[in-house]
């Protein structure tokens, strides 16, 4: 089976999953104990107001009709109105999502580069002091939730040794670039606002490193162990015996197969980045989708919650497809045999 057919099958499965997910999210949002309209307006709102909101949200119709209407809206990009901001949920998401994507992309980069680099280095010098330090740090990284890193970073770099900003996305004094893509760094480059670019970058560092550390530690450990395993194989030994420089052996022949497990786990790690961004953004007061999502959750803003969760599901499904593609590229067995997705 070629890569093309592999992808088609993969995409079809993803569509099925997304359809299922829409049902799941709808059920979570609608089978709430209590009345979403009443919850949104509060106990003191008059009955007629609640009733009209109920009608606006289609809560007076049977469940399957509600689902149909919700799905139809979803496919058209209409997620209903947020009960909290009183704006269409889609607009809110468009405003807040890029900021979160910026953090997650940046921290995925830190995670991948840092994790693989640390893994390769500690596999190259096994049981050296460096390897031991990496091992301890990796363990700490894995067991420490990212929101704890966030709090620690705020304490250290915000107050004790204040070298980096710990609040928001941009300093008040810095002029923000016009919103074009929503990605602050990209926008400031496009419009030549280098000061905003630099400041935005500085604001990104702490939250994204706090997010990345767990996955980075994981990636380092996995890369190390799979690299060590491949180093012990005959073909590696043969190359050493032929006198091929270690650098070439490592970079050209060993790294590719060794990265397969790392990349496979990366999908989960990126998902974890999105999930943990929910907590980390809170600590840094970062204006992203997660802060919006949490506010919606705390206020039982049903439309906003289901919208945000659905968007997360779509993103995560997309990430999974990309990761599968990368794994298929790295591992001929997957693309030739057709790839069982057994994880």
């Amino acid at each position, binding site marked *: 089976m070629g890569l093309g057919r592999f992808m088609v099958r993969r995409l079809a499965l993803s569509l099925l999953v997304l359809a299922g997910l829409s049902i799941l999210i709808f059920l979570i949002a609608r089978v709430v104990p209590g009345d979403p309209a009443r919850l949104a307006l509060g106990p003191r709102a008059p009955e007629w107001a609640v009733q009209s909101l109920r009608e606006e949200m289609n809560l007076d119709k049977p469940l399957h009709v509600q689902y149909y209407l919700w799905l139809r809206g979803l496919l058209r990009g209409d997620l209903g109105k947020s009960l909290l901001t009183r704006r269409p949920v889609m607009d809110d998401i468009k405003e807040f999502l890029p900021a979160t994507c910026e953090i997650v992309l940046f921290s995925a980069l830190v995670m991948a580069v840092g994790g693989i680099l640390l893994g390769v280095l500690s596999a190259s010098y096994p049981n050296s002091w460096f390897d031991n330090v990496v091992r301890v740090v990796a363990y700490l990284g894995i*067991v420490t939730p990212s929101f704890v890193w966030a*709090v620690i970073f705020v304490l250290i770099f915000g107050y004790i040794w204040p070298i980096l900003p710990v609040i928001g996305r941009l300093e008040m004094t810095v002029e923000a670039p016009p919103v074009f893509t929503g990605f602050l760094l990209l926008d400031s480059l496009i419009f030549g606002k280098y000061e905003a670019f630099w400041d935005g970058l500085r604001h990104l560092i702490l939250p994204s490193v706090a997010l990345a550390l767990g996955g980075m530690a994981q990636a380092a450990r996995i890369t190390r162990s799979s690299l060590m395993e491949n180093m012990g194989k005959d073909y590696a030994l043969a190359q050493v015996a032929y006198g091929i420089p270690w650098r070439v052996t490592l970079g050209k022949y060993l790294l590719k197969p060794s990265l397969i497990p790392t990349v496979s786990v990366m999908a989960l790690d990126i998902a974890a980045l999105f*999930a943990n961004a*929910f907590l980390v953004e809170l600590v840094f007061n970062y204006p992203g989708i997660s802060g919006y999502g949490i506010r919606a959750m705390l206020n*039982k803003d049903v439309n906003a919650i289901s919208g945000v969760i659905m968007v*997360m599901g779509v993103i995560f499904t997309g990430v999974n497809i990309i990761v599968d593609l990368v794994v298929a590229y790295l591992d001929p067995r997957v693309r030739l045999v057709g790839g069982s997705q057994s994880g």
Partner: protein
Amino acid sequence: MADSAKWRERLGRAWYKFSRNRLSVVGLVLVVGIILLALLAPVVVPYPEHAGAFVDYANANLPPSRTYLFGTDVFGRDIFSRTIFAFRGALIMAIGVLVTVVPLGSFLGLVAGYFKGTRLEAFIMRITDVFLALPPLILALAICAMLRPTLFNSMMAVCVSWWPWYTRLVYGMARSVRSEFYVLAAEVAGASKAHILFREILPNCMAPIFTKMALDVGWVILVGAGLSFVGLGEQPPTPALGTMVSDGAKYLPHLWWNSVFPAIAIMVMVLSFNLLGDGIRDMLAREEA
């Protein structure tokens, strides 16, 4: 008599394998310590009444000292006492979730793996895929948001997002074990489905299930802390580690002890269960070989 001697020998061997790695023993000691502290919290802790809605403004915001080991919070409550009491919620959460999720998830995986190639398999596994399409924390957050925030509800939310991982795990193993000769032999001999599922296939999946369980205790505690961190877990005045960290974060840097000690408590808890889990994995893995 002979039986008990045999058991003792097996136990001895298991302990030997487990204790080969010092860190596993450290993990075991820490886990036992944490469980004992949580169980005996009212007796061990210097100020058990501080675990509730207690107020003592005269002693508020005191830094760590000999009287208040971890300092006091804005209400004058001893943070050490509250941290130890918060272990209880975290452990109850982990136990509750795993006790529900492991049998349920494993059973579904077992069935799906045994009936491979049938509609039943497709049905179970596609539903599993749907639940796996969201990171567990996000799914749990969404469910929690819809329910009243209590320890029980957050447990339920985590359960909903956790079972598919066991289904996946057991499914993969059951699928491959399914075509082993002893399973086929049992089928030919006319053994019942229940016999094949639980007596032939399940025992071969136990080691990975136990390993995952031991490691998951830490992860469930983490997710639980995450939920309470945003305010969707156990509600004040009952202490919860996540809540303590996020409340304390408001008073950084001056009242740093408010969030730093509960944060360290989370790290220690997760670390201990991880070390123990690694030890159990080593023990079971080498037992097979």
